[in-house]
Structures are given as C-alpha cells and as structure tokens.
C-alpha cells in the first residue's frame, strides 16, 4: 500500500541503467535496494544478495560507497490519513478506529478518547436508526475549554480532541457540523 510517489522513488532507486552494466547473472541475482523497507519476513523471501564470489573485479555498483542506501520507510496508510485529517500541531489528541473499535493510529493520550469515539460512534448509529435519519457522518461537541470532533472517514471513525480556535471552525465547515 504505497502511493505513486513512493513507486517512483523505488523505480529511481533500482537504477536499471546500473543493472545493464553488470553481467546478466549478477544483475538477476541483485536484490532491489528497497529491501530495507520491507518487513523482515518478506525480506527473507527475496533472493540472497550476491557475494564476493559472484562479483567481478569492479566495485559493486549497487552498494553505495558511503554505506547502505537507506530510505525512511513510509508510514502506514492509516497514519498518513490520520495526519491528513489532523490540523498539524493543533490537536491535543487524535485517534482512528476501525469498525471493530481497534486503534489504527493515534497521537497523544488517547486512552479515554478511543473509548469515547467508539461509544459515540455506536450511539450515533442507534440514534440514526431511531430517528430514521441517514447514517452518522460527523459530530462536534463543545465542552468546557475543549472541543471534540468525531467523524466517519472511509468506514473508520476518527476522533479529535482540540482546543477552541479558528481551526476548529474550519474543520466544522469541512465536516458540515
């Protein structure tokens, strides 16, 4: 689950032109450079890196001279979308829950917030049935010196605890609450 920009970076990292300079046998045995990004259990299934016995006399093209090339692994998609839905630096806490209430991503102290979001989501679903309304979309609550926002996002529930301010108004406008 990587986006297109990461696929581009992988393509760049693979450097096909360098492969062309290697003997065919060596090029086929070379692992891709993004192995470091893969989980260990997937990385083990890849072909082993070629050894000194399989190299020719030239310096290895795929190994950078100043150490292994490392690309920071991308965050999981859930974390990326939580970050998108959170105004940077303004949320006291945020949490994303799947339909079973499991925490997919979180930021800040979310022990109570995750329970609150899960419960609010359930109550809102019941209210929509009882009042014959459409499915729950979003909720904004004004507490004493605190704002709580809960909304549905791609089948998951996102909960934010925010300080009052202009950013809350913008978020409310976007969510229609």
């Amino acid at each position: 689950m990587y986006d297109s920009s990461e696929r581009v970076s992988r393509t760049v990292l693979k450097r096909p032109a360098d492969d062309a300079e290697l003997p065919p046998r060596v090029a086929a045995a070379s692992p891709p450079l993004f192995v470091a990004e893969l989980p260990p259990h997937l990385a083990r299934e890849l072909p082993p890196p070629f050894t000194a016995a399989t190299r020719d006399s030239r310096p290895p093209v795929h190994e950078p001279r100043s150490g292994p090339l490392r690309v920071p692994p991308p965050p999981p998609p859930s974390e990326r979308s939580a970050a998108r839905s959170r105004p940077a630096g303004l949320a006291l806490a945020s949490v994303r829950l799947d339909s079973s209430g499991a925490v997919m991503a979180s930021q800040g102290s979310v022990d109570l917030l995750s329970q609150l979001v899960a419960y609010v989501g359930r109550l809102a679903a019941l209210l929509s049935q009882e009042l014959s309304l459409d499915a729950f979309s979003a909720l904004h609550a004004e507490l004493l010196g605190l704002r709580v926002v809960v909304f549905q996002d791609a089948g998951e529930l996102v909960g934010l605890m925010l300080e009052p301010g202009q950013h809350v108004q913008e978020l409310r406008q976007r969510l229609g609450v």
Partner: protein
Amino acid sequence: MVERPTTSLLDALRDIDGVLGSFLIDFDGHLLARDVPLLFQAEALDRAGEHVARLRAALESEGGSLSSCVARFGDHLLLLRAVGHETLCVLCPRGTNVPAVQMGCTLVMRRLHSRVPKAASMHDELALGGSTRSFRGRRL
C-alpha cells in the same frame, strides 16, 4: 410527561426556517417535552432520548461539561443544547441557520429554567445529595 407551557416554548424554535422539531429530555433521558412531527413515534423518541443522555454522559466523561453538540446524519443535523440537567434536542436539515438555532436553544432553555425552577432544584437535590448540601448542620 409533556407540559403544555414547555411544549409551547419548544414551538418557538420553529420560527427558524428549517427546524423540523425539538424535544427536551432530563438527565436520564426521559422525555420532558416534545414538539416533533407525528412521524416520530413516541417509543422511538423515548429510546432516542435515552441515547442522547448517554451521549452527553460519554462526552462529559472527559471532565468538561457539555455546552452544545451538533451531530450530522447525512442531510440532517441533530443539535443538542445542554443546560443544567436538561438537554434540548433540535432536528433540522443541513443548511439550516445553525447559529440562529443555537441562539433559539439558549433562549428556550433560559425561559424554561425561569418558568420551572422547581424542576431544576429537584434535579440539584438528586444530583448533589443531602450530605453535600449542608454545612455545620445548616442546609445550604
């Protein structure tokens, strides 16, 4: 259950374009008054009241008392205004002038508490209990 003066107070909310109806519940979610179309059955409204009360309790579990809440269900909004132990619930479509509804709710709740002080004091009695309402043998 439904007090006539209270219901007429709720009726004032319909002055705002779009408001479909409103109902008032107490701390436990019991229906105190309603001004909603007959489309809404009493049993469904009772259950909704209980769930709104639980929603309020859950939101207040973080420590702060709930002032107001807007929940969106597709093209409809459910606005909650909490004052004391009562919660006023207003149903309206999206696009309704929400600030106007909120001001209407504030006025309704203010008039409600000025008209039925007994209800408020009764709730206080239940919430605070006898021991915290006396000091050195004197009733506060």
